[in-house]
């Protein structure tokens, strides 16, 4: 068993998740101008819904779409009913609202499944791939491919399709976009839905390998945020930053132990924040 190769495989898997989460976070941030701290809850929710349904005997092919739909529904409702009517509120308060939503989601999860981590069977459970001294489960491989393809396709989608361009326009200048006939509200809703979809899919694939509990959502949001901010909130950059982050974290875990991962990630976050904030004045984004 080659430690290095195994770390690479592990890193690719988590990197795929960070990329998927990060790109959704960026989409929502750019189109709706809200940093959604409840973003990672879609990841955790989908896992918990599937686990509940599975233990009630519902087959995977039914519970997975149901879970994905539930996640997407929750996120779009958060936007439509809670955030959108208050879009003129100060940015800090909106972040607080999303934090409140994440909090409620955590509470619901404890109610549903308690505090212990849970999981459910993998979809792809064939023989694992053995390569260069490392082992990669089939499910893991699918996750990596999905992460790569989905994140890369977002960039293409945004620049080459009509709907994508409408989202870019909404992100850059909602006023101008609306004057051109773009339904900016629908563009935003779409951003939330896609973000939730990616998070849910990431959950569907990763959770069977690593389990989930009520804390996972916020932890994932944080990782997604780090990936997004390293990429400068650019949807296309998240592909690189997400996978890069995953690989780096896996290396740290492999050579310094799993407990070193959180502090290292935190240090990276601070470094990125300091770097990014050099571009913003007044420590709060206040502009003249």
């Amino acid at each position, binding site marked *: 068993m080659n430690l290095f190769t195994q770390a690479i495989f592990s890193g690719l898997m988590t990197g795929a998740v960070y990329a998927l989460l990060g790109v959704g976070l960026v989409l929502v941030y750019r189109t709706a101008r809200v940093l959604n701290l409840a973003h990672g809850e879609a990841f955790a929710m989908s896992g918990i819904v599937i686990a509940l349904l599975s233990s009630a005997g519902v087959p995977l092919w039914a519970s997975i779409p149901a879970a994905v739909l539930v996640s997407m529904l929750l996120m779009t409702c958060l936007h439509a009913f809670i955030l959108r009517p208050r879009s003129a509120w100060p940015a800090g308060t909106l*972040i607080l609202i999303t934090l*409140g939503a994440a909090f*409620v989601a*955590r509470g619901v999860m404890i109610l549903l499944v308690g505090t212990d981590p849970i999981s459910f069977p993998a979809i792809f459970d064939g023989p694992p791939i053995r390569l260069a001294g490392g082992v990669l489960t089939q499910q893991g491989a699918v996750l990596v491919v999905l992460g790569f393809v989905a994140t890369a396709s977002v960039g293409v989608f945004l620049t080459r399709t009509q709907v994508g361009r409408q989202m870019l326009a909404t992100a850059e200048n909602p006023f101008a976009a609306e004057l051109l006939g773009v339904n900016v509200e629908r563009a935003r809703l779409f951003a939330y839905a896609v973000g939730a979809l990616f998070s849910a899919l990431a959950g569907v694939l990763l959770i069977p390998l690593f389990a989930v509990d009520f*804390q996972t959502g916020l932890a994932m949001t944080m990782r997604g945020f780090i990936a997004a901010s390293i990429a400068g909130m650019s949807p296309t950059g998240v592909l690189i930053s997400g996978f890069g982050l995953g690989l780096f974290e896996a290396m740290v875990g492999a050579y310094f132990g799993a407990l070193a991962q959180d502090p290292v990630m*935190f240090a990276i976050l601070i470094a990125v924040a*300091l770097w*990014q904030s050099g571009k913003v004045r007044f420590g709060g984004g*206040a502009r003249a």
Partner: protein
Amino acid sequence: MTPRHLIIAAACAVAVVLPYLGILPGWTPAIATVSAFMALSLIGLNLVFGVTGMLAFGQAAFVALPGYFSGMLQNAGVPFFAAVAVGLAGSVLVARIMAAIFVRLPGIYFAIGTLGFAFVVEGLARAFPSLTGGASGLILEMPFALTRNGWYAVAVVALALALASYAWLVRGAFLRTLKIVRHDELAASVIGIDVVRVKSRAFTIASIYSGAGGLLLAYHVGVLAPESGGVNTSLEALAMVIIGGAGTIFGPLLGTAVVQWLFAVSGEAERFELLVYGLGFLLVVLYLPTGLAGGLGRIGARFLAPVRAAQAPASADGAPPARMDASGICLNVKGASKAFGGLRAVDDISFDVKFGQIVALIGPNGAGKSTLFNIVSGIEPPTAGAVSLLERDMAGVAVHERSKDIGRSFQVPRLASNLSVIENVMSRLDSLPGKMTEREKEAAARAHLSAFGLGELADLPMSQIGIGQHKLIELARASIGAPSLLLLDEPAVGFTPAEIERLVALLEMLRAQGRAILVVEHNVDFVARVADEIVVMESGRMIARDKPAEIMTNEAVRRAYLGALA
């Protein structure tokens, strides 16, 4: 003692003996003790989050750290009192260091950064069981024991001390400063507040309260678990502050008491705990932003006479400040340029403004006037050229450092809605060198407002003032404390002819005092009346600089800007 004070005193007395009265089921001395310690630490979170508006999402870390430090020191043989003192000091030191890093970050990064810090603290506490007891927690022992009532007495005294010290620390100028920083950091800088330093100070002071409460709670319970410094606890703390009323003095107490009592009374429904916290948090943020304390305050206000009766202060006779003793050039701009990428917003502009002179800056939208203003204020550094104020080169001088000599008003007034009119005006005096007492500042602000004809508005909260008055109030704030240079950005926008007359009179008064005034305006009539000299900008360049009469007939200016309006 006003009726309000009597009622508060009575309520406090009842609150203290309440656990022994037995009228409130579930509110035992034990619960009350724990609540009191929690409330103590929440005073800190309230200061950072409620008053100063910083999104501190990981404050529990500073609640748990002193206990961990102290416990570890005790295990290493350090005697109790020394361990506790060093533990608290150590935690405050960590907070000070974190503040230096975090406070410069924009809101989102600060939020995620503090959240991450709590993650890390909890993770570290779990990771080293030999030092911290790991997941089962660190056992904390005291060299003496306290009875249940003894602990309660300690709790009441500690909380009372904390509240008293808080009320003493956070008042007057410091409180005003914090409120302005919360409301608008740019306006704060322009008045002279060093935003980074103020936030850092608030963060550090907060950690003292967080840590003190945390220490007392930890030793009371006897065990310190890793979760108590982690994300969940931080979020729960935030919920209690919000529910109680963020930014109010009694908010943390109310929030803690209500939430802890509800949990005590509802019994074993531990599964619902997080959900209840979350719902309370969300519902209050969405529908009742001032929390319970705010709600109670509003009810109370209806039954009690307003605290602030119209007090007649000593002087306040509207006498304008004495004439400034200066002449010559106040502001000198030489070759100033500012490029954003390929776009030259300001291109080689040179002019000066003398004491006792009004210079107006006119030009079409997009000509670069606001950018030039920002360069003079220090908000944007020029890519070329120099700005000197009072013959001192301003390169590298921060916005808040220039404010002693520059008073600035904005196109859209930036007044703090969470302060009264007079507090807004006084706030500029808070940051000026030289010590004025509160009374002196208040008297000066009142006199100044009267000179502007705004005397009766002085004690009203800003939120009750119509938008039409905002510009004049901002002008009053900008001009108090005798700054040498006034930068006024479109002061006449939206004014009726009568209001413009008033503004002209005020500017003439300020000019007569010897100030240098630079005005950006579109109202050509107004400018022609009031300005001694007009500078015309177009596409970043200065195309004319002359007396009003000459400018009005200048061909180039007419073509570029005036059209046939003159």
